[in-house]
């Protein structure tokens, strides 16, 4: 599954709040042609019903179940921050927007969670200096 390309990775995000961060990663998904702008609206809807904070400095904003038709291509976009984003009281440094077509959401979620459950991998991701290093460490690059 072709889900992540270097164009969808931003190493120094500019958002300072949770909502700005959702908008930032949402714009990245829209700009790569993966989703419609309605999907970004659905990302806010999902966040307001339940937080997508996952632990270990990670949040994974994504749309609601109903919005999966707004996904053209399964994709993820990654924004890394040099500062903490306050995500409902938790510090977040990695915001990974997920757009899963059909039922592919679980596959993407599993791959991301597997990387972030390893604290040394999270440390490596914080030190990565190029988008390609992030790609390699997430293991989500196109096969």
């Amino acid at each position: 599954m072709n889900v992540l390309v270097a164009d969808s990775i931003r190493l120094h995000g500019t958002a300072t709040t949770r909502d700005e961060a959702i908008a930032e990663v949402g714009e990245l998904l829209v700009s790569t042609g993966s989703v419609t702008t309605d999907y970004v609206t659905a990302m806010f809807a999902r966040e307001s019903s339940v937080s997508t904070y996952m632990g270990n400095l990670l949040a994974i904003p994504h749309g609601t179940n109903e919005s999966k038709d707004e996904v053209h291509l399964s994709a993820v976009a990654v924004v890394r921050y040099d500062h903490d984003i306050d995500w409902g009281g938790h510090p977040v440094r990695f915001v990974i927007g997920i757009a899963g077509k059909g039922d592919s959401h679980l596959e993407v979620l599993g791959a991301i969670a597997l990387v972030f459950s390893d604290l040394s991998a999270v440390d490596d991701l914080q030190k990565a200096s190029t988008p390609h290093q992030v790609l390699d460490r997430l293991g989500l690059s196109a096969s």
Partner: protein
Amino acid sequence: MTAVHFGAGNIGRGFIGLALHQAGHQVTFVDVDDGLIDALNAAASYRVIETGVEGRIHTVTNFSGINSRSDPETVVSAIAAADVVTTAVGPRILELVAPLIARGLAARSAPDPLAVMACENAIGASDTLRAVVALHATSDQLDRARFANTAVDRIIPLQTGDAGLDVTVEDFSEWVVDRTPFGDRPPVLSGAHFVDDLAPYIDRKLFTVNTGHASIAYLGLRAGFSRIAEALADNRVASVVDAVLAETAQMLVARHGGDPTEQRQYAARTLERFRNPELNDELERVGRQPLRKLSRHERLIAPAAALAESAVVPTALLTVIEAAMSFDFPDDAESVELQRLRATSRAEDFASNICGIDGQHPLRPALVATISRTMG
């Protein structure tokens, strides 16, 4: 013995909850639907009504419900004390279940590990759940649970009328569980089949049930039918579907070994399931997302490619692939794209880009010829 099951919908009550009950567990259903949770707490029993030639009626008792939105603390306590946790919630909900499981593990003092099984329509769902739980738990806490992948199969028809908690299901069900995470102490689950390798079971289902279902849909639509059971009652459709399942049986036995007679019986039982008039699905619904269904690792191309690799021409599967090319329903975005590609693309490019069959692959000549016949 106690079990906590996430998702009190039709699959939860009519399949997993029933199996847990039959294995002797007191079942706690967790859901966010207030009406459902209130009904579960008010009722002493509900019925699972099986339709089909082997259909029976089962009565489930000894259960309760908790609303995870309004009462997460009670869910956490229930998990801390449970023997088994199962889920049937769907891909975007599993991540919400994970923090509750993590907190349940943190609060757990029972010496035996908790058995966790995600019964979702996805391969490796329990591995995914484990990875997400790991984000919320220490490694010591994570070690208090064993996560086992499963494969589940039971068709639940559209429920008609107001049956309350009762659920109508087909008379077939299969719950296969990977035994290896449990070592020599698997959980008590009489209705589940514990195996050392799930792959043969996942393939068997995908290339018999899903391949068969899609074949009936595409062949049936081409012959002018609109429902599964009526299409399968047609001899022309049924004879090609039989040939398709003979081809996939050959491929399954070649890949995983096993008894050809048993595979034939499984295929025959699958067709019997499809003939169940209560499950009479619409062909259009079954055929949706044709581009995904025509992709490399899916139900049609994957078995056709495997057969071609062992020098067998998969004639029946190619007949279905040809029929799938005519799938034309404006409501389905992939169908619209399929018809656009048929009108504007070359068969060679379709085979490479959509079906993932390119270069020197032995299926390529026959596949390209089949596709080009549909391109006028």
